[in-house]
């Protein structure tokens, strides 16, 4: 197990990057603590897989350094870094049995056969495939194959970290839950440092202690699932996390009051925002629909079973609100914003408010 320091790492796939836009990874500076479970969350093309491949050594970063437990590993090969990685599509060695698949990384490293046998048996127990040991790997289902991919990492007791690159993409929905909870269990029992790349927020939020949200080649926020939900640092995090995403609307600020068209909204405090484009963000969960407040026109109501999502227009802008399953939409609907859920953004970045 290891602490992983990503030290001012930049990466470009072009030979001579000039502009910021040439970089797939603009600049990442972050420490993954030993034994932590991290999720790298972001849309396709945001650089999360690039970052993962830099950690595992499949890519050499254009700039910056990578430290494992304080030791510089930037120029070490994947094999020397002692990393395990599980890919989007299950990688198994078709012609081998399940047992031989797991033994493969150990045999490649010249481990004595007695130790190989012991470790493989342990691992088969861990990933719950003991009864399949003698079967050919190609006959297995996608989730079993993915467990073998994982097992080939777990079998090496000294791995520095286990990296996952959207490992559940090809798994059936009901198996996703099972695998995810097994992963979580493994993490709790053995304390591996795990980094998990995904674009699925549910996956990220349920798996990780710390979620690293990436956008356009950089990290926009690192936090617990609750922090990401309550206090998105960037409007992107607001949009990306939560379903539906955060309502963001341009406002003018005057002390503790925000003005949206003809509406005035009381803020919990005075924001420290003097310049830039000011926006107000509020999650649909904090928009209260009732008979008082700002007048809205309802576009539609989506009933999701556990709650309803109300799509409406406020001052000509789309706004969503979440209401309880039993609540009804009043005849002349109005909305209020719960001050606890209000965030103010200047040029897309969150600003603090003074009480």
């Amino acid at each position, binding site marked *: 197990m290891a602490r992983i320091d990503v030290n001012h790492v930049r990466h470009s796939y072009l030979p001579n990057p000039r502009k910021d836009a040439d970089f797939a990874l603009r600049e990442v500076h972050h420490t993954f603590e030993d034994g932590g479970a991290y999720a790298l969350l972001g849309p396709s093309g945001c650089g999360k897989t690039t970052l993962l491949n830099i950690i595992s050594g*499949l890519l050499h970063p254009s700039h910056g350094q990578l430290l494992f437990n304080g030791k510089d590993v930037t120029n070490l090969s994947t*094999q020397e870094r002692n990393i395990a990685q599980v890919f989007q599509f299950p990688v198994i060695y078709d012609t081998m049995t399940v047992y031989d698949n797991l033994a493969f990384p150990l045999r*490649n*490293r010249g481990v004595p056969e007695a130790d190989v046998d012991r470790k493989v048996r342990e691992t088969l127990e861990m990933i719950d495939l003991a009864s399949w040991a003698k079967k050919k790997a190609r006959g297995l289902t996608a989730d079993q194959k993915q467990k073998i991919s994982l097992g*080939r990492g777990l079998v090496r007791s000294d791995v520095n970290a286990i990296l996952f690159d959207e490992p559940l993409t090809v798994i059936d929905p009901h198996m996703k839950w099972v695998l995810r909870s097994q992963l979580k269990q493994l993490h709790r029992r053995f304390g591996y440092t795990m980094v998990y790349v995904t674009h699925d927020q549910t996956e990220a939020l349920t798996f990780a202690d710390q979620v690293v949200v990436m956008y356009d080649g950089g990290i926009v926020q690192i936090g617990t699932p609750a922090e990401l939900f309550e206090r998105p640092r960037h409007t992107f995090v607001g949009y990306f996390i939560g379903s539906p995403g955060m309502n963001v609307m341009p406002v003018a600020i005057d002390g503790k009051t925000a003005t949206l068209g003809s509406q005035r909204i009381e803020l919990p405090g005075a924001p420290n925002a003097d310049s830039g484009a000011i926006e107000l963000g509020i999650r649909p969960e904090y928009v209260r629909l009732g008979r008082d407040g700002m007048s809205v026109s309802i576009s539609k109501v989506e009933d999701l079973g556990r709650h309803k999502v109300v799509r409406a227009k406020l001052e000509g802008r789309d706004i969503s609100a979440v209401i309880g399953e039993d609540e009804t939409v009043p005849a002349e609907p109005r909305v209020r914003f719960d001050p606890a859920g209000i965030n103010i953004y200047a040029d897309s970045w969150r600003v603090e408010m003074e009480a």
Partner: protein
Amino acid sequence: MDKTWNNKAWFLVLPVLVLVAFSAVIPLMTVVNYSVQDTFGNNVFFWAGTEWFEELLSSSRFWEAMTRNLIFSFIILAIEVPLGIFIALNMPKKGWGVPVCLVLMALPLLIPWNVVGTIWQVFGRNDIGLLGYYVNALGIDYNYVQDPFDAWVTIIVMDVWHWTSLVVLLCYAGLVSIPDAFYQAAKIDGASRWAVFRYIQLPKMNRVLLIAVLLRFMDSFMIYTEPFVVTGGGPGNSTTFLSIDLVKTALGQFDLGPAAAMSLVYFLIILLLSWVFYTVMTNYDAER
């Protein structure tokens, strides 16, 4: 069995049946007809029964041609398959090199067979041929017209030159279909170059390789044009393969009966081998 059978559909098959009858069945029956009769010309035939078959199967000439054919097929497979795999492994997977390599590889396949024969016939001549002249100039006594060994070397090199590309292209198609993740996983698992080949590349090429072997075996077993043009089956009978022997018997000596018997046996061998390969391949598929 109260099912009503509607036989009208047979009429739809009729055109194909007629076509196949004229193109294959009737000629084949003529051959069968010849194979059991003897003739001295003037369209007069005498019943010969199984005489030609008995003669054929006990003739050393036939078995020698057959042996030569099997040895030839074995040698070219033993060279072309490993060489083809080796080249395919070393071909670029992306960039400008890909189209260049593919075109270069496809070139020999596009040349008509008798032209290939002519090219090598001239190329190997020790008076004006580029190859023959310089090999001799190096002090190696090389003359495919007189020396059986040299004739074999020439024909084998020619076949390797002509057909290795096919194996390369098939293997290459198998190789490029392997996702990058497999190579990355192998790196992480610390696999050696050999292990990557043995456990990732070879299994993925398995199927195309089987097709390549099948095609190359069939083709080399039926080879006619190229050796005919280069050596004409000589020197002596040293490069007389089954097909060349057959043509010699049928058109050279005009022994229609023995030639017909030989055709049928040849046909049955090919049929048998095709069936064996087909069974092996389908079994292999079922197992997957």
